């Protein structure tokens, strides 16, 4: 009954990258229905559990200015009932089958997932098919108004009533140029949420919620053939939608910007953000490793310097946030009581310069590779994570089983690569955002220090 970490064919796969082993494989079949719907099935017989994971290739990056937050609002509306499964049957039927479900939205895609006993698979697929094929005829103003209220509550809870919760929304428009798909937040502004109309909902659905813009992964104790039969029976009559074009955003350079935000917080926090790279592009893995060398563990450079040696910060986190169209890199540090953000910034810059000058040593590099690889593999212990990853690889590379290639990206990174990407991306123009307690603007980071 026990869930395997990975599929049976992974038996010989190395969990730590220091040894050679058989390639990591998560075998999956790929089929495309005549209406354009792609089905990916991964058979994992170890536990009588199944996950479905549907990606619609639309995210907040596809929104129009003035209608931000729409992709995510729409995600909520997908649970409001469809012709044959009127509200609130979606949740009730799944719960009665011992299954659970949810969805999420980011800049690039919206996903929907269910997991539960294998006995619930036909129900899961039927519910997904019904809301893809027969949602609009039951959509009305009251449903939109209700979920608009729920999303506004979500915004209050996760952003406005959350310490530092508005940092991201201040950072992104400074980092990305106006109109860039990543310059606004996924949750959207209150004004835009209020402006969303029933017609917007219908247009959005007709444009993006079509079989040819969707990929469904089924992973678990199932047989690919019978899953294919079910999916064909349930989804085939849903018509193909219009072809979608996504113009690439224009290239841009970050302008050095210093921002101060007063908030109801006890301790000031500094955000440093740079322009990065697209996911899976040439420097992406090296930037991930650089971020680990800076803050991935207690002995990482920024953590060691700021939290342990000099005791200036309560925590520090560096991360490379690469996305489909673009990317950014951030370092976020919270000061200890009595410490100003200029002091943190000075230490961060000094560590960045050191890494850019000398690069990581051999042991640091190996630790980073091993830790990233172990995290990568442990995440795949869960069928839900595996299903989402199959969908992610398919969207990016056109093949769902890209696990081994992903690992190899990290194995190939050299110390010189890390040194080079730190110099190229993290010493250049950036946005500096200080979040300080009300009235304590004197604690803010005031100037650019690195050069």
């Amino acid at each position, binding site marked *: 009954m*026990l869930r395997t970490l990975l599929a049976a064919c992974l038996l010989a796969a190395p969990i730590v990258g220091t040894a050679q082993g058989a390639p990591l494989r998560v075998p999956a079949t790929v089929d495309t229905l005549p209406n354009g719907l792609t089905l990916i099935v991964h058979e994992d017989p170890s536990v009588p559990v199944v996950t479905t994971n549907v990606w619609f290739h639309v995210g907040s990056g596809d929104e129009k200015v003035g209608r931000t937050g729409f992709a995510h609002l729409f995600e909520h509306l997908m649970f409001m009932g469809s012709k044959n499964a009127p509200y609130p049957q979606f949740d009730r039927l799944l*719960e009665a089958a011992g*299954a*659970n479900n949810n969805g999420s939205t980011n800049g690039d895609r919206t996903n929907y997932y269910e997991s539960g006993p294998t*006995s*619930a698979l036909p129900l899961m697929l039927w519910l997904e098919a019904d809301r893809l094929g027969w949602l609009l005829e039951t959509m009305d103003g009251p449903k939109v108004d209700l979920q608009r209220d729920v999303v506004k*509550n979500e915004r*209050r*809870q*996760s952003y406005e009533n959350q310490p530092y919760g508005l940092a991201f929304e201040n950072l992104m428009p400074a980092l990305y140029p106006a109109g860039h798909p990543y310059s606004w937040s996924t949750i959207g502004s209150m004004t835009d949420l209020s402006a969303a109309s029933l017609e917007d909902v219908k247009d959005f659905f007709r444009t993006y919620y079509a079989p040819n813009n969707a990929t469904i992964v089924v992973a678990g104790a199932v047989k690919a053939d019978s899953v294919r039969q079910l999916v064909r029976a349930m989804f085939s009559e849903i018509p193909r939608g219009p072809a979608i074009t996504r113009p690439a955003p224009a290239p841009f350079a970050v302008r050095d910007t210093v921002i101060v935000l007063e908030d109801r917080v006890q301790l000031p926090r500094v955000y440093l953000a740079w322009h990065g790279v697209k996911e899976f592009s040439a420097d992406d893995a090296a930037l991930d490793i650089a971020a680990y060398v800076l803050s991935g563990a207690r002995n990482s450079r920024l953590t060691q310097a700021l939290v342990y040696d000099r005791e200036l910060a309560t925590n520090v986190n560096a991360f490379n946030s690469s996305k489909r169209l673009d990317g950014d890199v951030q370092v976020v540090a919270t000061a200890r009581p009595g410490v100003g953000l200029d002091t943190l910034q000075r230490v961060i810059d000094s560590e960045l310069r050191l890494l850019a000058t000398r690069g990581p040593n051999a042991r640091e590099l190996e630790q980073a590779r091993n830790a990233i690889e172990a995290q990568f593999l442990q995440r795949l212990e869960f069928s839900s994570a595996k299903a989402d990853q199959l969908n992610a690889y398919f969207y990016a590379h056109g093949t769902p089983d890209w696990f081994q290639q992903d690992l190899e990206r990290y194995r190939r990174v050299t110390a010189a690569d890390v040194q080079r990407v730190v110099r190229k991306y993290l010493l250049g123009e950036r946005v500096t955002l200080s979040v300080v307690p009300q009235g304590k603007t004197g604690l803010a980071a005031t100037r650019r220090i690195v050069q």
Partner: protein
Amino acid sequence: MIHRSLASARLMRSRASFATVTAVLTLLPHAASAQQAAFDRTRPPALGATPVLTVPTVTERRLPNGPALKVVEHRELPLVQVTLTVAGGARLDRDMPGLASFAANLLDEGAGRRDANALQSELAFLGASLSTSANWDVTTISLKVAKRNLDAALDLMADVVLRPAFSAAEVRRQRDLRLASLMQAKDQPGTLAGLAFNQALHPDGHPYRAALGGDSMSTARLDSATVRAFYEGSIRPNRATFYVVGDISADEAEAALGKRFAAWRTSGPERRPAPVLAAAAKPQGLQLILVDKPGAAQSIITVGTTGVERTSADLAAIEVMNTILGGSFSSRLNSNLRETKGYTYGISSGFAYRPLAGPFTVSSAVRTNVTDSALVEIFKELTAIRDVPVSADELARAKAYLALAIPGDLESTSQIASELAYLANWNLPVSWLQEYVTRIEQVTAADVQRVARQFLPAQQGYIVVVGDLAKVRAGIEALRLGPVTVREVGAIARE
């Protein structure tokens, strides 16, 4: 990434429904196979046959110096999970709230000949994850590593368990970090609501009054000697159980652990839980505690009372009742306050099961201008489930939800180990899950109503609201639910 709800419905479920068992599940009756002749889109497809489980065999051993050893051999991948639990936890904090969790946190901040830096470096180099924590009942040290690095990682784990450094410098550093984090509790309205509720429910001298992480006054008194004395009195082999799950036999596990842990000896007097000086009593009527956060975008509401002990014979009925009330996405509270009224992003209810009766709470963050209306709706639901028997449909749905979801809670080696540990902590046999499923099947609408009447705070309990009092106080007082006390943030989260 933005989720539709606060937590997936599964996550809302309480721990009581998780377990591991060696038995075949016979679940609720279900319709026939999905392979039916014609597909009729207008109605939901029948559920397939309920899957049959083959569950792991647990081999039980004991190391000569006391620790129990429970091994599940699981050969599908070259991975090993080693979870060590030591009975005790925050029940042993006594007059120093937060001590157990602080000591647990320090175990891996330097041990043996390695400082925090070197220890972390070696673990990461091996691709091993090691974590240390304490809750009310146990301290847990958990290791996950590739089989071929197990020996090297166990050497590190043995240092962490047997030879923690507790250096004065590290104790001071971690104490300062914890003080800073306690200071930040003032920024977190949800944390403030939880603290205020706990302080209201539990009188001085009750073991659940303090937060697991302690407060600033107890934290300021932490030093190396205090932590070491706690360690010696509580992290002891006679209280320890190892759970090993993965690519390893019981013999191998016994040899690997014996080699490193057989020398583990007790030293100094054993630390015992403080006597419970005061019982958590239900208050007279309803009492309101208001906490002012000027400018807050929402009000955080906690409504609750003293719940029930883990050993309650009514556990299954209580869980079914709570699933209907606020323990699932389509529960009455969430359907009403989120999906019908649009007051909140989510609302849930739950019982915390501990050796003594833990709290029952309803929690939500609601729009400021509907704070009073939200309270009205919460009490409407708390009353309705007491006054009117639940429908057959609701009852069947809740029972299926609890029983059928169990296999999915045992996906990973770490989940299996933690469920084994959970069961053992309550001295439950492996057959417990089967018994639990049977008990769920037997719950009736009358049972649900009976436990609702017995355990829900419709007439006696505490109501905590953290929000902008200038905007919400008058509306709350107009409801005349009970006497109102206003508490200062600084008195709840003391610096």
